[in-house]
């Protein structure tokens, strides 16, 4: 086996493993999506939270998150719970303010509740960019590595040595 074919076999093995990990991650996420039940909740309070963190340059970095207090019912029992948007923390306060304005107190929206503990609630749990993000990136990486491995394998076809 020549060097290119050996490299392609290694890349294929890594690609296959990555693809399997991605598929497992996707399955877990989809199972979580299926498990948490969608419920309609009323926003009772909405506020923006500021997060300060240090950076490598020694300067403080500021990011923001949208936070909500929600009221909903499960099994005829009223529940109040707090939730933070699981979007990665945003650096623009305007974007967060606009999001909060969309869900001002009194508005209703779909959220996802843990049936094992109805006080646990998640926002944006549907099959969206946040919940499927990482598994899709890992799956793409695995598939790409397999494509590259195939190309290297073909390029490594032994030929006549002139």
């Amino acid at each position, binding site marked *: 086996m020549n060097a290119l074919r050996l490299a392609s076999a290694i890349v294929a093995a890594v690609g296959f493993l990555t693809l399997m990990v991605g598929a497992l991650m996707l399955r877990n996420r989809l199972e979580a999506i299926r498990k948490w039940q969608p419920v309609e909740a009323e926003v009772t309070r909405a506020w923006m939270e500021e997060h300060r963190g240090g950076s490598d340059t020694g300067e403080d970095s500021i990011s923001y998150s*949208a936070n*909500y207090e929600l009221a909903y019912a499960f099994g005829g029992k009223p529940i109040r719970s707090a939730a933070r*948007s699981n*979007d990665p923390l945003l650096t623009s306060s305007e974007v967060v303010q606009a*999001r909060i304005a969309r*869900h001002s107190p009194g508005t209703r*929206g*779909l*959220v996802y509740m843990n049936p094992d503990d109805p006080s646990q609630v998640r*926002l*944006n749990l549907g099959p*969206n*960019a*946040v919940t499927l*993000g990482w598994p*899709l*990136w890992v799956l*793409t990486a695995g*598939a*790409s590595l397999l*494509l*590259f491995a*195939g*190309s*290297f*394998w*073909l*390029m*490594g*076809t032994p*030929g*006549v*040595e*002139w």
Partner: protein
Amino acid sequence: MPKLLSYVTVLFGLVFFIAGSWLLYVQVLQGRKETEAEILSGEVERFEQTEEGTTTTLYRSKYEVSFTAEGRFFRRPLQGNFSSNNAGDIQKRLSRNPPGSRRPIYYLRARPESFVLEGLSRRIGTSFLFMAIGVTVMAVGALLLYQAQPLEW
């Protein structure tokens, strides 16, 4: 801005994909045909290569081959596809391709004088590599676009 970046990424990937597809078209659909060439003579050729101010003496094989393609007879010089700073390496290759031996070559039907030594699978490997880069970059662009979509909450 992230959306613009996604579109640029998809476009960049598309360029690679089209380049790979075009290469594949040239190599497969345009179709090189295989024929056998007879080696008439072979010798070690010495040449110099200058890189970053340093001149290196290298050696490669040089043959004269003849073949028949599309009903026409051709007699052409042919350079080996490998060079080395050791003339002995080239001599070994020459001994594996002695005068009188026959080897496969691949020519274009429209221009039989244009021929290559690499078989189809080696040549389409490069096309697939370009297409693989294109597909990967397009997938990254699509994922960026997907993630740029605003969330409900």
